[in-house]
């Protein structure tokens, strides 16, 4: 096969990736889009194999068999609640692959005098890939609960990280100027260390931002590898993924009302008891499952606001049963989903989709807020900070400015919660003390099953 033919096939693969991503624009076309993208990948790999003069077989075959088996196993066995960990691990593997390819190229070409730009792309590929690798696995360990999710800090941390970053840049400059192997490998090593040290101080609650950012970096690493082996399919795919990760990073920081540097260097999220104005502490009104069932049955529109507590209690299926029952009675139902409702972008949507909720009932922030003033009953399950009116009204609140679901605009608010304790930001929620708010103190799953049985008697 000629080089031109091969490169055209790579172009077709890149086009397949773009079409695949475009079809992710709607749940209706998304699955076929994924199929198109994966076909593009298969074609790109096959054409590479056909085109190669293969000297060593064992490494290729062994790698494909081992990698394929591990990939299938992980993909089929993962629980939907563990999706953030899996994506973090995949990011890490992607970063590793990019770093290893560039490393192998460097070793092979060590005796050849290389142009400066080639060494530079090699070393950037190794550095970015290495940070992605270790950073992702620290994120994985935190999400999986293997290490403490709370921020780990020590005095002088910023100084150490800063010095290491400057050192790494120095090594990059040295390596690309002299093609000195020692500098090359030291730069890679310091990048591995940097990945650990930068992610370790970040709290578990901020992991959605970190995963999105690492997603972007894994794309950037692939693009750099594309420069190393002058392959535009890699450059295009890397750029696409880099852009995707950046957009999600931005969306997540906006939804959390934080800046990226605050997330990376602020060491916030869990453990930090932000004082909060406990001004509006009054009496919360408690209610019973029977009363809530009546209110739901006679409503014309019910909106549910699920939080991660719902998934922790494994109550998605019970919630969907309740909503299906209400639908059968002619109640219009919808789910209002805050961008940070889950543990990664879009996580709650997947958890509800798994529980068989039709996707047209899954509404985003704006759609939900448009609907809430025309809603009879809003059911808040396992969510707290994302429905806290202080974020809108109280300039002194630590979460002031964070976009919220304005559930206090609905006629009746039912909050299902185990107690009045504040959420992990440690901020009191004035919503609980409003006249229109009724508290149903119960575990999310038990509350759902109680409501379903209470509804039968209405």
């Amino acid at each position, binding site marked *: 096969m000629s080089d031109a033919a091969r490169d055209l096939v790579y172009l077709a693969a890149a086009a397949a990736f773009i079409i695949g991503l475009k079809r992710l624009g709607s749940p209706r076309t998304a699955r076929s889009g994924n199929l198109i993208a994966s076909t593009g990948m298969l074609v790109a790999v096959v054409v590479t194999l056909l085109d190669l003069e293969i*000297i060593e077989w064992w490494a290729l075959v*062994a790698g494909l068999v081992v990698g394929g088996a591990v990939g299938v196993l992980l993909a089929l066995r993962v629980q939907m609640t563990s999706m953030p960990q899996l994506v973090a691990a995949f990011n890490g593997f992607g970063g590793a692959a990019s770093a290893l390819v560039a490393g192998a190229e460097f070793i092979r070409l060590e005796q050849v005098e290389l142009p400066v730009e080639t060494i530079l792309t090699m070393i950037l590929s190794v550095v970015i890939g290495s940070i992605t690798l270790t950073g992702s696995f620290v994120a994985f360990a935190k999400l999986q609960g293997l290490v403490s999710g709370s921020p780990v800090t020590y005095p002088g941390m910023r100084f150490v990280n800063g010095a290491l970053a400057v050192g790494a840049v120095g090594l990059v400059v040295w390596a690309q100027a002299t093609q000195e192997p020692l500098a090359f490998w030291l730069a890679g090593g310091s990048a591995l260390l940097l990945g650990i040290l930068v992610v370790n101080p970040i709290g578990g609650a901020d992991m959605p931002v970190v995963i999105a950012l690492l997603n972007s970096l894994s794309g950037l690493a692939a693009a750099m590898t*594309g420069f190393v082996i002058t392959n535009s399919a890699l450059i295009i795919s890397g750029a696409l993924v880099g852009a995707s990760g950046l957009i999600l990073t931005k969306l997540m920081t906006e939804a959390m009302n934080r800046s990226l540097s605050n997330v990376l260097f602020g060491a916030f999220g869990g453990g930090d008891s932000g004082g909060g104005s406990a001004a509006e502490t009054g009496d919360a009104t408690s209610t019973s499952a029977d009363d809530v069932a009546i209110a739901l049955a006679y409503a014309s529109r019910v909106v549910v606001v699920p939080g991660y507590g719902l998934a922790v209690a494994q109550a998605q299926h019970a919630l969907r049963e309740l909503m299906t029952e209400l639908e059968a009675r002619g109640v219009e139902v919808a789910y209002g989903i805050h961008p940070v409702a889950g543990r990664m972008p879009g996580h709650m*949507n997947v958890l509800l989709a798994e529980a068989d909720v039709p996707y047209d009932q899954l509404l985003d922030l704006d759609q939900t807020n448009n609907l809430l003033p025309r809603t009879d009953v809003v059911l808040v399950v396992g969510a707290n900070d994302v429905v806290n009116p202080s974020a809108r009204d109280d300039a002194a609140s630590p979460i002031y400015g964070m976009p919220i679901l304005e559930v206090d605009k609905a006629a009746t608010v039912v909050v299902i919660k185990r107690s009045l304790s504040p959420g992990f930001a440690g901020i009191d929620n004035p919503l609980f003390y409003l006249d229109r708010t009724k508290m149903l103190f119960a575990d999310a799953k038990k509350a759902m099953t109680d409501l379903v049985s209470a509804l039968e008697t209405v």
Partner: protein
Amino acid sequence: MSSLLIVGITVFVLASFIGFEVITKVPPTLHTPLMSGSNAISGITLVGAVIAATAGGDVLATVFGFLAVTTATINVVGGFLVTDRMLGMFRRPKRPDEEAS
């Protein structure tokens, strides 16, 4: 700078713009499949890994190549498969004619 590098940079910049345009249109509902799917796409490094694993020569380079093929294959196979699994869960609305946008 060589013209090859310039071409590479050009492709990178233009592809980034396409990425921003296409991905801002992905609804929040699909952001998790977007992450796992785009991650699988970044597994295109497999193409580079295949070259590194089969070129022979230095043993260390071949070992690096083997590890690169392994990790990239995990990314590609696992990424596309889990994305498909997730997207399969997104059920069609019961009444498509009444579907709200």
